[in-house]
């Protein structure tokens, strides 16, 4: 089976069977990262460019490691060191990169739809590594892999996503993916941080943390985007932490074998207390490990064209 599109732009348009295919493939790829020689020759001679207009440690490194372990050559471009600082437009940058004949371009950009623009303009496969508050498909896929691994299935699980839902591309991609896989998804956060179209997303909406995480199999905490604090979406960090942080008291409301997830970077003491982030329920670092496998699977499945 193949993916039906040349690009990976989001989970919204991704059929369930293709999600299964990516997760199954990723599961087999995990083993490669445990070898002494962590490299296979599959993408030998292919060139992968990461084009990051926003800060990132995990995602960019994860993509680069994934590409390298498959034998591809990688080039990393970050906006601060590129001609973007000289005023070059996204489209011009992309056209110039295309002229050097890469095979896959991975892009992160603060504007929603940036990856879609490249996808429709270039013949190369484009992978969206985050576009504004829109989608971050590889994060959702690695989250789904982690859940499936820990729980055996996604279908029928009660999954709570807590935090700034409106500004979170991680939440959006996960909502699309998890509901498609048959999970019962609850979202929770301050009313100011709920997207307007939340009612159309097939999730239940809560404004009280305790209600959302009650009996949950999975609690996914979102990063409080501190850079947005100036917009006064909430009065103070302290108040936010009092109402919406996951701590040793409220975690008891969830199931005994609940897993706690976070896409990183973690604001310790804001959305999650350190004892929970480092505690026995936390799978935060396994998410990172799975990220490499999911990205390897995608690079493999998108290479060599589609049919």
């Amino acid at each position, binding site marked *: 089976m193949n993916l039906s599109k040349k690009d990976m732009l989001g989970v919204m348009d991704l059929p369930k069977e293709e999600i299964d295919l990516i997760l199954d493939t990723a599961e087999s790829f995990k*083993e490669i990262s445990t070898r002494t020689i962590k490299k296979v020759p599959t993408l030998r001679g292919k060139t992968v460019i990461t084009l990051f207009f926003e800060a990132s440690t995990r995602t960019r490194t994860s993509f680069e490691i994934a590409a390298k372990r498959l034998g591809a050559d990688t080039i990393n471009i970050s906006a601060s060191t590129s001609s973007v600082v000289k005023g070059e437009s996204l489209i011009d940058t992309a056209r110039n990169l295309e002229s050097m004949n890469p095979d896959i371009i991975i892009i992160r950009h603060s504007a929603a739809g940036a990856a879609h623009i490249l996808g429709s303009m270039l013949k190369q496969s484009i992978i969206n590594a985050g576009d504004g508050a829109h989608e971050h498909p590889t994060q959702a896929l690695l989250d789904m892999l982690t859940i499936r691994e820990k729980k055996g299935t996604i279908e029928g699980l009660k999954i709570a996503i807590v935090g700034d839902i409106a500004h979170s591309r991680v939440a959006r991609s996960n909502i699309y993916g998890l509901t498609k896989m048959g999970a019962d998804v609850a979202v929770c956060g301050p009313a100011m941080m709920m997207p307007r179209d939340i009612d159309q997303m097939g999730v239940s909406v809560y404004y009280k943390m305790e209600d959302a995480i009650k009996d949950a199999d999975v609690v996914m905490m979102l990063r409080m985007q501190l850079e947005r604090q100036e917009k006064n979406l909430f009065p103070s960090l302290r108040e936010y932490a009092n109402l919406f942080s996951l701590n040793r008291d409220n975690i008891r409301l969830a199931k005994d074998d609940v897993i706690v997830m976070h896409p990183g970077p973690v604001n310790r003491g804001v959305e999650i207390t350190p004892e929970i982030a480092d505690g026995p329920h936390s799978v935060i670092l396994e998410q990172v490990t799975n990220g490499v496998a999911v990205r390897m699977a995608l690079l493999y499945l998108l290479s060599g064209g589609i049919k």
Partner: protein
Amino acid sequence: MKKKQVVMDADGIERSLTRIAYEILERNKGTDNLIIIGIRKGGVSLAERLREKISTIEKTEIMYGTLDITLYRDDVLTTGKRPEIEKTYIPFPLDHKRVVIVDDVLFTGRTVRAAMDALMDFGRPELIQLAVLIDRGHREFPIRADFIGETLPSSLWENISVNLLDNRDIDEVVIEES
């Protein structure tokens, strides 16, 4: 119209595997540092059975693994569909080991080439030997098997399939025109 002919039945397969098990032991002078690795998918159950036989004969457990060679194939990105990747399970270094790779049918030799490349990423084996149930000829690479169940000269227009089932009484090797 497809014509189907059974060229090896369950008893035949069983006898071939018994002989190969003894040959492997004879050639390697026992089970020291011996590892049996089945190539996905066709070689896995054969390797499993060889391991059982060798363990029974020598009254000792031997190391065993499975290998998916897809990522090492020379046509992995040029075939229309991305081949499905299955799990590789080799949880031990192959340094100084005597590795017997097992597959059902030896044909062009390309799978074996890929398998050898893959094994080199798990260490430096002392030697690699190849055991196959059927050698059907038509080699495209300079590769030969060390242990062969049966040599079956075939035409390129024929398919040979080794059907091994959980119920071993109905195992068979069939040859059919494609």
